[in-house]
């Protein structure tokens, strides 16, 4: 079962509060049920990320079973890399802990520290080998404009970090708001090497912050992708799907 393990993550990058469409916290809860973990990065400098924005970032991540961090645009690259990796480890840790509980009645932290090292090594190896599907949701409201070079740089950097993993990865990118007529815009679908130059065209300042609809679109992309692969293989592939485990 470990060989074909698949992880699904959404990484939301925003500098404000949602103000349009469905409630992002509720959508995040749906994501978690569907086995998709949501990480949120709130960018503080320049934007209008007040205490409400911070609370929302935390609430979305908590509902989505992921992490939230509030950082400056400069720290974006480092933070994206770290969060993606930690969330993969967390997800596998949860699976391993469940297995351990069934086998010996305790999770990893119930083991003496020396024996825990063996579990940690296994989790570390598995998260390096697992397949990762990641959707980036990028807030392109007006105040994000001057941070977009940093965002692009951070995505390039994340790609470098993912490239050295043993497991494969696919990244898709949405921006929100997408344009005057659509709330959310797909910049690039799942790909091993997302075309970042297309991001610069997509990134333009718009009004409104439809965070909830953006997460919904990401979930649709995951779901559509799954239907497609199921049709192709014509069999249940949930065995390797972390979705079946995330609680």
């Amino acid at each position, binding site marked *: 079962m470990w060989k074909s393990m698949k992880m699904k993550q959404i990484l939301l990058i925003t500098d404000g509060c949602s103000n349009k469409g469905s409630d992002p916290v509720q959508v995040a809860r749906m994501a978690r049920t569907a086995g998709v973990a949501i990480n949120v990065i709130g960018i503080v400098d320049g934007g209008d990320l007040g205490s409400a924005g911070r609370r929302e970032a935390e609430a979305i991540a908590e509902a989505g079973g992921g992490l939230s961090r509030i950082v400056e645009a400069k720290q974006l690259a*480092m933070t994206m890399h770290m969060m993606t990796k930690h969330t993969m480890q967390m997800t596998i840790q949860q699976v391993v802990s469940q297995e351990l509980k069934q086998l010996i009645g305790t999770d990893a932290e119930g083991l003496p*520290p020396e024996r825990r090292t063996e579990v*940690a090594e296994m989790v570390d190896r598995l998260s390096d080998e697992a397949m990762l599907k990641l959707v980036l949701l990028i807030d392109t409201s007006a105040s994000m404009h001057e941070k977009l070079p940093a965002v692009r740089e951070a995505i390039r950097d994340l790609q470098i970090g993912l490239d050295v993993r043993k497991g494969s990865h696919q990244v898709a990118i949405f921006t929100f708001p997408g344009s005057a007529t659509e709330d959310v815009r797909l910049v690039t679908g799942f790909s091993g090497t997302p075309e970042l130059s297309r991001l610069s065209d997509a990134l333009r300042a718009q009004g409104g912050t439809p965070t909830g609809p953006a997460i919904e679109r990401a979930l649709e992309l995951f779901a559509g992708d799954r239907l497609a692969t199921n049709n192709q293989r014509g069999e249940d592939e949930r065995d390797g799907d972390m979705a079946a485990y995330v609680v």
Partner: protein
Amino acid sequence: MATWQPMSSEPLFRAGVPICGKWNGQRYVVEGLLGRGANGEVYAVKAGSGDRLALKVSSASSDIALEHKILQNLQGVARGFDLGPLVFDLDDVDTKRGKAFFYVMEQVRGSSLAPFLQRRGRHWAAVLMLQVCTFLERLHQLGYCFGDLKVENCLVDEQSGRVRLVDFGGVTPFGRGVKEYTEWYDRAWWGQGSRRAEASYDLFALTMMVVALLAPDLRQKLSAMSTPNFSLLLQSAMSDPRLAPWQELLRAVWSGRVTTVGRFRERLMLLVEASLNKERQEKAADAPRDFSDWLLICSAATLVGVFCLIFL
């Protein structure tokens, strides 16, 4: 008990707080905070035996366990000198803010490299770098990359001039993605290669240490820019008089001609000899000014000699 979340700006422990390991029952008293990073906090502690040690605490039990294991591997093969700090206890602790995970190691003392160079003279840089080379060569022989090699992770002993490395959180087996890094020293950030753990990754970081130490304002100028600009770095470094003796060596690494620490060290030896000569001349010029400087340079020369014996 829930795990401690290192969100707040407040460190987990204050000076004077006792820590008692849950599994092994060892007791420590916190004496002060030594450092904080994204991945944990390091404290100076006093053990029950009276020994002064360092304690690294984190909310990630697996990070702590893996780091402890690597440090154990490193000290197991020490021939004569230790690659990393000696490690001891690995345990959990329950705190008011939740459960936390820690390991205990030797407390490495020393000064930062920059002030040391200011006091002793810039030509000392070659001697310091030579020692880092020796360390890296041995680490690489064991199949590990140091990863987060930077000026801040080196300490030098004022008396002996001996360099020690601290913070082994970035140590990564060759072939994997480097666990921890700092942008200025990260070749991938500069667009000069992958973030895969290999000898040449550390070597790039080593050259960036040279620039950071000898031309600190250049580092400030270049890191303040929103995106990395390697060609500007290359251009500035090659025209900076302070880096003149190093330019050939830096260029050799950055162009990919030198990829192992061994080759780098061979070339570095020439610089070290020049530095020793310079020191001798200066001492001859303003004779018995300070005897301790002589002692220092002699011990460094001995160190260099010993390194040569080991490797040749």
